[in-house]
C-alpha cells in the first residue's frame, strides 16, 4: 500500500510538472552525451595507442641511390652498412622485439595497396621509397633510444618514429576531450540548477499537501521521497536517452571508419556499455544530492 501510494504521488507530481520534468530530462541527456563523448574519446586514445603499439614503431630508412638526405651524400647504402645496421639492431634486444626488412619493391607494393584509390599511387616509382628496417619495440615509449642510435649512422637516410605522428593526433584528441568535458561540466551545472528550481517549484505547488503531511506527522522521508523520485525518474530517462545517442553516434562512426579507414582501430558499441554505468552513477548521485539539499532548504519541518 505504502509503495502504491508513493507511486501514485510520484505520478501525479510528474504529470502536474510535466514540462519542467521534460526539461530536466533534456538537460541531463545533453550533459551526459557530452560527458560520454569525452570519456569515449579517451577510450579511443587508449585503443589507438594499443593498436599502434602492436605495430611498427620505428622505421629506419636507408639511403637510396638518389636520396636527398644530407647524411647519404648521394650514395646508396652498401651491403656492409646494411648488415652492420642489422647487427646493431640485434644487439639491442630485448628493447628491440622484432625487425623486418622492407625492400624498395615491397615498399612500392605496400604503397600501391594503401593508396590504390589515390592519384598519388601512379606518381610513385620503385625506388622512390627507400628500403628500410621496420622495428617493433618491447617498450614503445623508449623509441628515443633507437632513434638516437641510428640517426646519422652510415647508410641511414632518416629515422622515423610513429610516436611523433601519433602524439600529434593524441594532442588533437585530448584537446577535443577537454572541450567536451568542459561543455559537459557547464551542462551539469545547468542540470543541477534546473533540478533545484524544479524542486522549489514543486514544493511550492504542493505546499498544501506537504503542509497537511507535516501536520498529521508524516515522516520526513515520506514527505520528501516523492520529490526526489520525480527528479530521479527524469534523470533516468535522460541517462537512457544519452546512452542511446552515444550508441547511435558510435554505431554511425564505426560504420564510417570501417569503410573509409579500414586500417584504424576505433571504439565500438561495447565501449558505450562500459561508459554507461559511470554516466548513470554520476548523474544519479548529482540528482539525489541536489534534490535532497534543496528539499532541506525549501521543505522545512
Amino acid at each position, binding site marked *: *500500500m505504502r509503495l502504491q*501510494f508513493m507511486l501514485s504521488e510520484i505520478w501525479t507530481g510528474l504529470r502536474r510538472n510535466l514540462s519542467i520534468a521534460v526539461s530536466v530530462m533534456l538537460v541531463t541527456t545533453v550533459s551526459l552525451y557530452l560527458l560520454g563523448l569525452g570519456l569515449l574519446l579517451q577510450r579511443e586514445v587508449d585503443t589507438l595507442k594499443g593498436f599502434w603499439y602492436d605495430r611498427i614503431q620505428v622505421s629506419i630508412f636507408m639511403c637510396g641511390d638518389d636520396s636527398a638526405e644530407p647524411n647519404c651524400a648521394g650514395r646508396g647504402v652498401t651491403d656492409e652498412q646494411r648488415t652492420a645496421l642489422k647487427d646493431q639492431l640485434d644487439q639491442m634486444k630485448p628493447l628491440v622485439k622484432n625487425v623486418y626488412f622492407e625492400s624498395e619493391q615491397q615498399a612500392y607494393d605496400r604503397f600501391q595497396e594503401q593508396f590504390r584509390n589515390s592519384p598519388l599511387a601512379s606518381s610513385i616509382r620503385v625506388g622512390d621509397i627507400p628500403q628500410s628496417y621496420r622495428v617493433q619495440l618491447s617498450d614503445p615509449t623508449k623509441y628515443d633510444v633507437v632513434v638516437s642510435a641510428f640517426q646519422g649512422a652510415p647508410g641511414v637516410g632518416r629515422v622515423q618514429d610513429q610516436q611523433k605522428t601519433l602524439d600529434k593526433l593524441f594532442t588533437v584528441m585530448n584537446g577535443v576531450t577537454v572541450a567536451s568535458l568542459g561543455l559537459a561540466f557547464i551542462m551539469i551545472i545547468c542540470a543541477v540548477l534546473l533540478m533545484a528550481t524544479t524542486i522549489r517549484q514543486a514544493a511550492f505547488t504542493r505546499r498544501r*499537501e506537504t503542509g497537511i503531511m507535516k501536520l*498529521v*506527522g*508524516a515522516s520526513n522521508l515520506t*514527505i520528501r521521497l516523492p520529490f526526489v523520485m520525480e527528479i530521479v525518474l527524469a534523470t533516468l530517462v535522460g541517462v537512457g536517452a544519452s546512452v542511446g545517442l552515444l550508441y547511435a553516434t558510435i554505431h554511425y562512426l564505426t560504420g564510417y571508419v570501417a569503410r573509409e579507414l579500414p586500417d584504424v582501430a576505433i571504439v565500438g558499441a561495447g565501449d558505450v556499455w562500459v561508459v554507461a554505468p559511470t554516466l548513470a552513477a554520476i548523474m544519479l548521485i548529482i540528482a539525489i544530492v541536489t534534490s535532497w539539499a534543496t528539499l532541506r532548504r525549501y521543505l522545512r*519541518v
Partner: protein
Amino acid sequence: MIRFENVSKVYPRSSRPALSDISLEIERGEFVFVVGSSGSGKSTLLRLVLKEEGVTQGAVLVAGQEVGRLPQRKVPRLRREIGTVFQDFRLLPNKTVYQNVAFALQVLGRSRHAIRQVVPETLEMVGLDGKEKRLPHELSGGEQQRVAIARAFVNKPPILLCDEPTGNLDPTTSLDIVRLLDRINRTGTTIVMATHDDDIVDQLRKRVVELKNGHIIRDENKGVYGSGR
C-alpha cells in the same frame, strides 16, 4: 497531558513577547477553551504544542515529553499524537471527502485494509456518511470543517487542537461543530480550542483560559467568555 511551565515566546523582530511566563496544565480528557482577542497569544500557544515554533524560555510538555528537547526527526511522532483543525479547513481541493481523510492515514503508511475500515467509520461519526465522493467545493462550510475534523481525528490522536474552528461559520453551524468536538471529547480525547466565539463558550460551560497580551488573566472551570466581549 499538556503542560506549560513558565513559557515565554518572543518572535524575532518583535518588541513585545507573544507569550510571557505562561504556566498551564491541561489534564487528559479535558475540554479547554482558550479565549482572548486577536494577538493575545492563542495561536502561538497551539503552535508551541505542535513544535511549529520553539519556546524562548520555559518548557512545554506533551504527554510527558518535553517538546523543546525533541530532536527534529522525532517531531513527526509528536504530531501523530495531535490532531489539528483550522479556521480555513485546509482540505485538498482535488481530492474527495474520502480521499482527504484517507490521505492522513496513507502518508503514515497505514495499510489499505485499515484505511477502508477506519475512514468510513470516522466519516459516519462526524455525520458525513453518504458524502464520501464529494469534492470540498461541493460542500458547505460546516461540512468542510467536518471533513477537516474527520481527518484530524481519523488517526485517533489523544489530543485535538482547534484554532478558531468556527471562525468561518455561521452561529448555528458553529454550534453543531462544537457539539461534534464535545462528542469527540467524550471518547477521552483532550481538546484545546482557541476561539473568540462568545456564544459557544457561554453555552458549553467548559474550562476557559483567557489570554491578554501574552498573559493568562483568567482560568476557570465552567466559565463564560467574560471580559473580552
